[in-house]
C-alpha cells in the first residue's frame, strides 16, 4: 500500500461551534436510524407482536368479553397501540446495553461531545420504531374492521401523544440499560416493569370486571390515562383530562429518568 500525505483541505474548528448538543445528538440519531433500517429484523417486535396480540384478544377472547368482536376491536386497538409503542422503547435500553460494551462507545467518549449525546441520539433514532409500530398496527386494524370514529387530526394527535409518552418512558429503559450488566437482564427488568403498567389497565377488559385492589391500581396507573386519551382521541369521548395527565406523566418520566440515565452512563466505566 502506498501512502500519500495530503495537505489539509478541512480543519476541525479550534473551538466548539454553537448548538453542538443538538447537532451531535441528531448525527447520532441518524446512526441509530441507519442501524435499524439496515437490520429490519430488529423491527419484528414492533410489527408482528402487536398483530399477534390483536388476533389473540379479538378473535379468541373478544367474543367472550364484549359479545361482539367488532366492538371489542374498536376499544382494544388504541390501547394495544399504547402497549406496543411502550414495549418498543424497551429495545432502546437493550441495544444501548449491548452497544456500550463495544469500542464504538469508547470512541464517542473520547470525542469532544456532551456525555449525554449518544444516549439522546439513540432515544431519538428509535422513534422510528414507534412510527413503524403504529403504522403497521393501524394498517392491520383497518384490514380487520377498526375505524377511527373521530377525525384524522385527532387520530394523529393520539399517535403523537402515544409516541411522546413512550419516548419519556424509554428513558427509564435507558437507565435500566445503564445499570444492568447483560442485555438479557435489561429485558428481564423491563418486562417486570411493563407488564403491570400495560396490563394493569382497562386494555383488554373493563375495569368494573376486576377485583377492588386491581381497580385501585388501574386508577393510579399512568398508562391508564394514556390509553384513555388514545381512545378518546380516536373513538370520541372525554379527552382533556386524560391528555393532561399523559403530558404530566411524560414530563415526570423525562425529568426523573433522563438525568438518572445520563448519570449512570457517566459512572459506568
Amino acid at each position: 500500500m502506498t501512502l500519500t500525505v495530503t495537505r489539509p483541505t478541512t480543519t476541525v474548528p479550534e473551538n466548539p461551534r454553537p448548538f453542538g448538543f443538538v447537532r451531535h445528538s441528531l448525527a447520532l440519531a441518524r446512526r441509530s436510524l441507519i442501524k435499524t433500517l439496515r437490520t429490519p429484523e430488529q423491527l419484528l417486535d414492533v410489527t408482528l407482536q402487536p398483530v399477534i396480540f390483536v388476533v389473540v384478544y379479538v378473535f379468541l377472547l373478544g367474543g367472550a368479553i364484549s359479545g361482539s368482536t367488532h366492538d371489542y376491536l374498536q376499544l382494544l386497538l388504541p390501547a394495544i397501540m399504547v402497549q406496543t409503542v411502550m414495549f418498543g422503547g424497551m429495545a432502546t435500553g437493550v441495544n444501548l446495553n449491548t452497544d456500550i460494551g463495544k469500542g464504538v462507545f469508547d470512541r464517542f467518549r473520547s470525542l469532544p461531545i456532551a456525555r449525554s449525546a449518544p444516549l439522546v441520539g439513540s432515544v431519538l433514532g428509535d422513534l422510528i420504531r414507534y412510527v413503524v409500530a403504529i403504522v403497521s398496527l393501524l394498517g392491520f386494524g383497518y384490514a380487520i374492521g377498526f375505524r377511527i370514529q373521530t377525525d384524522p387530526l385527532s387520530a394523529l394527535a393520539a399517535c403523537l401523544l402515544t409516541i411522546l409518552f413512550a419516548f419519556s418512558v424509554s428513558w427509564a429503559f435507558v437507565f435500566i440499560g445503564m445499570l444492568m450488566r447483560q442485555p438479557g437482564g435489561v429485558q428481564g427488568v423491563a418486562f417486570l416493569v411493563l407488564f403491570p403498567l400495560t396490563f394493569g389497565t382497562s386494555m383488554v377488559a373493563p375495569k368494573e370486571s376486576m377485583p377492588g385492589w386491581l381497580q385501585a391500581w388501574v386508577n393510579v396507573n399512568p398508562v391508564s390515562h394514556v390509553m384513555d386519551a388514545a381512545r378518546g382521541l380516536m373513538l370520541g369521548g372525554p379527552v382533556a383530562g386524560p391528555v393532561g395527565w399523559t403530558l404530566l406523566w411524560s414530563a415526570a418520566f423525562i425529568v426523573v429518568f433522563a438525568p438518572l440515565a445520563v448519570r449512570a452512563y457517566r459512572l459506568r466505566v
Partner: protein
Amino acid sequence: MNLAFEAEGLVKRFGKTTALAGIDLAAGQGTVLGVLGPNGAGKTTAVRILATLLRPDAGRAAVRGVDVVKDAGRVRRMIGLTGQYASVDEDLTGMENLVLIGMLLDLCRVDAKARAAELLKEFGLAEAGSRPAKTYSGGMRRRLDLAASLVGRPDVIYLDEPTTGLDPAKRDDVWNIIRSLVTDGVTVLLTTQYLEEADALADDISVIDHGKVIAHGSPAELKQVVGGQTILVRPTDPARLADATAILAAVSGREPESPARGVIAVPVDDDTAFTTVVGRLDREGIGVTELSLRLPSLDEVFFTLTGRHTVEETAA
C-alpha cells in the same frame, strides 16, 4: 523538551486489582512512545486515562499541558484514539463511520464527507467505503479504525495494540501508516507486546509490568540491557548439536542455551556475528533446518529485567 503528553504517578484500582501502581509516561512532540508490556500490565488502563475515558485514583496526566481530568473537553479536541478492540460501527459503511466522527468533531456535512473520502483513499479503502464495516477483513477494519482516529487531525494519537492479531503483511501496512503520521508531526503513544514492533517504530520505550515502569530508554539503550539480537540454530542432524554449540560459543563468547529440543540460541552484540556463524557452519558442513537472527521476545526481555517470565494473566 516540549511534552506532547505526560503522566505522573498514575494509580488506578479496579476493586482489589491494582491496574496502575504509579506509572510515569511522557513523550516529546512528534515522537513515538512505545509502551511495552504483557497482557494485564496496565497498558489499556493507562491509555484510557490519557484519553479521558477513565479517571485516575491518584497522579495526574496532561496532553500539551492540559489536564485530562480538569479539562477533558479541551483534551478531547487534541487526541485521537484507536482502542484495543475495534471501535468502528459494524452496521455503518466505512464512509458513514468517518462522516459521523467528522460531524461529532463539528465539521459541517460537506467538510466531513470530504475528509472521510480523503482518509478512505489514503488508507486504501476508497472502494470498500460504501460497504458496511462488518464485511471488512481484519486488516481493513484496523485501517478504518486508524482512519477514524485521524478525522480531526489530532496532535496526539493513542494506538492500543494496533497490530495484535494481524498477519505480517497487514502489520507492515499499519507500521507504514504510523511512520507517515510521525512525518506529519503527530505524537504517537503505541502499546505493544512485541519488542520488535517497539524497536521498529518508537523513539523511546517504556517497559511496564504490574502497573509500573520497569525500564525506560531508547530502543538502543534497552537492547543493551536485554541483549541485542539472538542467533537461533537447529541443525538438521541432532548429532551435530555439540559442534554447532561450539561454534556459537566461540563467536558470541557466551554459553548458548537450548530453548527447545534440538535448538540452540545465544545473544550476540556484534552485527557481523550472524554472517560469521553462517560461514563456520558451512565450512564444517553442518546443515540446518532453522537459522535465524531475531530480537529477544517480550518473555526474554522480561526474564532479563525481572528474573521472571511473563505470566499468562487473564486478558483484559
